[in-house]
């Protein structure tokens, strides 16, 4: 306990901040243990994590918002306030966030420039929203295009967290026909570690987990091929869904208000994208573990997957072809049938020719003549 007090009392650290806010050591360790589990780290890491976070100086964070709806900020700041997740966020030094900061105009931009200068190479850059490349004027902040601001701010960042599907993969702004030429952060910045935390919006604890990992180890968590932390995006919603047993038994709701839906059967036939969506919704759930879309009776729309908006109708089962039009299908069928007929004709004529060429085998013809 003595040691804990010592840690907590170090001035200017996260630990001190927690103590000031009346968060007990016990509560803090509980939080660290649950994060350790969520990050799929060994249990012994919980105390190491607690120590690291307590000692950590407030991490300078610059948050840039581009073509976005502020849903990601809503999710992270308001979802289940006031919890430890939020407090951790309060305890980072959020030096620039144009929705949350009090300053405006030149003062605001000055805060960003100052933070970049003071913490060069150390600050964490969080981005939500996609970047329009179609025309720099489509989205500007203080007269600076999103592209230029991203490139400028990214230069001195230790790492970049692309929060939300827009920043991670382009999201809804990039949906066809993509009028603004929207792209993801990773399409522009190639020389910095980028952690994608997709979702529309992403789950708050995933954000917290990534941040804590960064504070604890000074590195980014293990990522999958789409740049997502494996600990949160390693499994599909479907694999972790509490309705999975119904799927396995072939019990499906056919409409949102039939008896099967009331019985809580699988929503696959109503368009649930759970089987192809990698996210932690079914395990961590939303609103302080209250529920998640499938539990509320609506299928997963796959919002954390790239191009989810263009991946076919939200209410059509995955087994129904999504993008092909009936003309395309008809043409493909016609081409396939024609190719089939041609190959069949060719093979039949090969075989017919072989049959014609057949010379009756006699016992005198079972050996080859010696040459």
């Amino acid at each position, binding site marked *: 306990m003595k040691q804990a007090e010592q840690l907590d009392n170090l001035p200017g650290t996260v630990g001190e901040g927690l103590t000031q806010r009346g968060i007990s050591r016990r509560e803090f360790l509980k939080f660290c243990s649950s994060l350790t589990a969520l990050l799929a780290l060994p249990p012994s890491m919980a105390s190491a994590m607690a120590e690291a976070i307590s000692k950590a100086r407030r991490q300078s964070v610059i948050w840039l918002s581009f073509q976005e709806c502020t849903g990601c900020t809503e999710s992270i700041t308001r979802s289940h306030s006031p919890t430890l997740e939020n407090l951790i966020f309060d305890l980072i030094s959020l030096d620039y966030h144009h929705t949350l900061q009090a300053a405006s105009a030149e003062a605001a931009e000055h805060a960003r420039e100052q933070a970049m200068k003071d913490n060069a190479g150390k600050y964490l850059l969080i981005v939500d929203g996609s970047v329009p490349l179609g025309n720099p004027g489509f989205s500007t902040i203080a007269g600076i295009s999103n592209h230029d601001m991203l490139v400028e701010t990214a230069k001195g960042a230790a790492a970049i967290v692309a929060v939300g599907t827009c920043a991670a993969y382009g999201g809804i702004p990039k949906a066809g026909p993509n009028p603004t030429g929207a792209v993801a952060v990773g399409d522009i910045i190639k020389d910095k570690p980028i952690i994608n935390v997709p979702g529309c919006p992403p789950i708050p604890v995933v954000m917290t987990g990534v941040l804590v990992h960064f504070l604890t180890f000074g590195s980014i968590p293990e990522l999958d091929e789409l740049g997502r932390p494996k600990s949160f995006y390693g499994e599909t919603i479907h694999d972790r869904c509490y309705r999975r047993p119904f799927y396995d038994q072939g019990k499906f709701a056919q409409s949102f208000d039939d008896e099967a839906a009331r019985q809580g059967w699988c929503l696959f036939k109503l368009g649930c994208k759970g089987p192809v969506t990698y996210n932690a919704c079914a395990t961590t759930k939303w609103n302080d573990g209250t529920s998640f879309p499938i539990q509320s009776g609506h299928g997963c729309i796959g919002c954390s997957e790239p191009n989810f908006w263009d991946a076919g109708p939200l209410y059509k089962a995955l087994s129904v072809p999504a993008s092909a039009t009936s003309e395309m299908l008809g043409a493909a069928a016609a081409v396939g049938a024609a190719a089939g007929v041609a190959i069949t004709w060719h093979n039949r004529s*090969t*075989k017919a020719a*072989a049959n014609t060429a*057949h010379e*009756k*085998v*006699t*016992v005198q*013809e*079972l050996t080859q003549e010696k040459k």
Partner: protein
Amino acid sequence: MTASLSKGINAFKEVIDAPIASFFSSCVHCGLCAEACLFYTETGEAKYTPIHKLEPLRRVWQQEYTLLGSLGKLLSLSKPVTDEELTEWEPLVYDSCTLCGCCSMVCPVGNDLTYMIRKMREGMAASGHAPEDLIAATTRAITIGSPMGIKWPAVQAQIKHVQADTGIEVPVEREGADYLVLMSSMEIINFPEYLSALSRIFKQAGVSWTLASDAFEATNSGIQIGSSDLAREIVSRIVVAAERLKVKCVISPECGHAFTALRWEGPNLMGRPFGFEVKHILEVLDELRAAGKLKTRGKDNRPLTYHDPCQIARRGGVVEQPRRLLSEIAADFREMPDAGVMNWCCGGGGGVSAITRAEPLRLQVFKIKKGQIEATGVQTLVTACANCRIVIEEALEHYHMKIEVVGLTELLAQYLVEENASPIPSPVSGRG
């Protein structure tokens, strides 16, 4: 006229049908067929993997019947099948495949590999790559009438012996009889007990039957060498005789491939359904038993086991009949491990027993059967295929195992209740 590579390749093209095309395209290269092949399990040599034995046929399929394969052929990317390659494959397709059908049973995608090997032999025979022993046997079958060179007078001599021993007339050329009885050369030369046992059983059961002087041989070397033209000629002798004598049913003897040749391949070879039924002798005997016409007395107290011939059990579906028949007369019947449809082959079917150079390999792979027999602890093994019987007897001799092998028909006849009690011949063992 002579066999040639081009004839062989042409035959490959002819035999590739929808099943073979789908088998080749659905093979997932899992290698499970290897574990089902006794030539692989007993030698550990990868070349004995059943699907590998089909490689030349697979390449012809790929080159002639698939889009990518024909492009590859045009661009000389895939090598053509050569005489040298077929020479190399000859021992794989003939010496080390008994057409036992185990691989077809285990294939997870349902490929009938045995069917493919049988078809591949068409091209091997047409290209002159069949083993010389099989060529000689087939030549005798076509020109003399039997692969072992037996002619009707030899059968007549045996008929005389049987009549003298049993006092029962053996009907010959009897038009309108219910059953036409066939024999295998092996039974005529090595196991004369069969005809004698059959005469007595049929006499007791009141069965009307006959032999045909021009169609006594049931075996079909054309099937083993893999030439439909020759197999058709051989099977047509039986069909012609059966239709001439207007029999209702032809009885395939205690011989494995003869049953396959007549029952399954026969109508396809002839291109028409038969006007008569084809049954294996065990099916007929079991019917007689069920009808109460096969009466036996007493039980054999020796521990007995039964070897399922591949073509009769696995490929022919006659599995329960021998067990029902044995339960009538066996006091101590013991099943071998893997008995029934998954029984291990004797190692000499599908023509292998006729290939002299294959003998060391045949004896080597017999070890699996040896283990099966030893597991039962019996001294007497019953079977229903003269070829299995001779192969097993030779191997038992090689391994110095003192085990007697008997045919099921003759064993039944030993316990037959006969009304005109004639002297019951003492049990005959070994080769006559």
